[in-house]
């Protein structure tokens, strides 16, 4: 088991690469979920507002 984690002396490089990849991908998944939550909340607020003239439905971002 220790031999596995030692990676033939390259532990720092191998685990850094895998670790950074894991963190970055987990971060993107969290970011994408947070954006979805915010987008749904925004859409819900806009949808619950009384009907507006068509011209005002435009750029949100």
């Amino acid at each position, binding site marked *: 088991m220790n031999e596995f984690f030692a*990676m033939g002396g*390259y532990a720092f490089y191998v685990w850094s690469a895998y670790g950074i*990849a894991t963190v970055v*991908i987990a971060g993107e998944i969290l970011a994408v979920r947070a954006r979805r939550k915010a*987008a749904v909340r925004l*859409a*819900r607020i806009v*949808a619950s507002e009384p009907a507006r003239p068509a011209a005002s*439905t435009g750029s*949100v971002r």
Partner: protein
Amino acid sequence: MTLNWFRLASPATFYPVAGRLIPWFAWPAALCACVGVALGLGAAPTDFQQGDAYRIIFIHVPAAWMSMFLYLVMAFWGAMSLGFNTRLSAMLAQAIAPTGALMTFLALVTGSFWGRPTWGTYWAWDARMTSELILLFLYLGVIALRSAIDDPRRADRACAVLALTGAVNVPIIYYSVKWWNTLHQGMSVRPGESKMATIMLLGMLIMSFAAWFYAIAVVLHRARSIMLERESGAAWVGALAETRS
């Protein structure tokens, strides 16, 4: 079977389709990543030249492939949005940019962790690495350009033009190891031939599938948020189950 692609090109029809597609890519991505990491870190033998440091390529190569491929897909949807003036194409291009930037970042960082033990340096200004760094700047440029322009439709056009112009960089990255004498090694895998042991190649292919599925799932997910952000106030958004209160 006839399929009307322009019907799918409307956010109102694509939004639910994308939602149903996401799990079909997310779960295979997770599965492929588990199998690929098990093969890459466990089953694949130690390389006789590079020792265990080579195991970084199971992330590095798929990330580098995806970084180039996603750029071309982004440029393609940009071109479609310029040509047909379709909103959805531009939204897809917009959804791809962050994931492309992330893949490029991963390719660069994992590459430098591989380069240090293998070549003795984290970074060199050789053609492959420099052109990949330019790719990262192109992605960041597209993202920054969009956030600098308030009108989304104008931002779409500006980003599409920048993405298309930058596409010339992709073949430069791909062929850089052939055209110039680079510190970066040449191609190990080419269509039709490979210089790697079968199990190493298998691990890398499975990791590539993981990267593919992951990128598709996360881009569709982000595209759905973008559709809600940009079309909030439209009747179809108000009619969705998740926006009715």
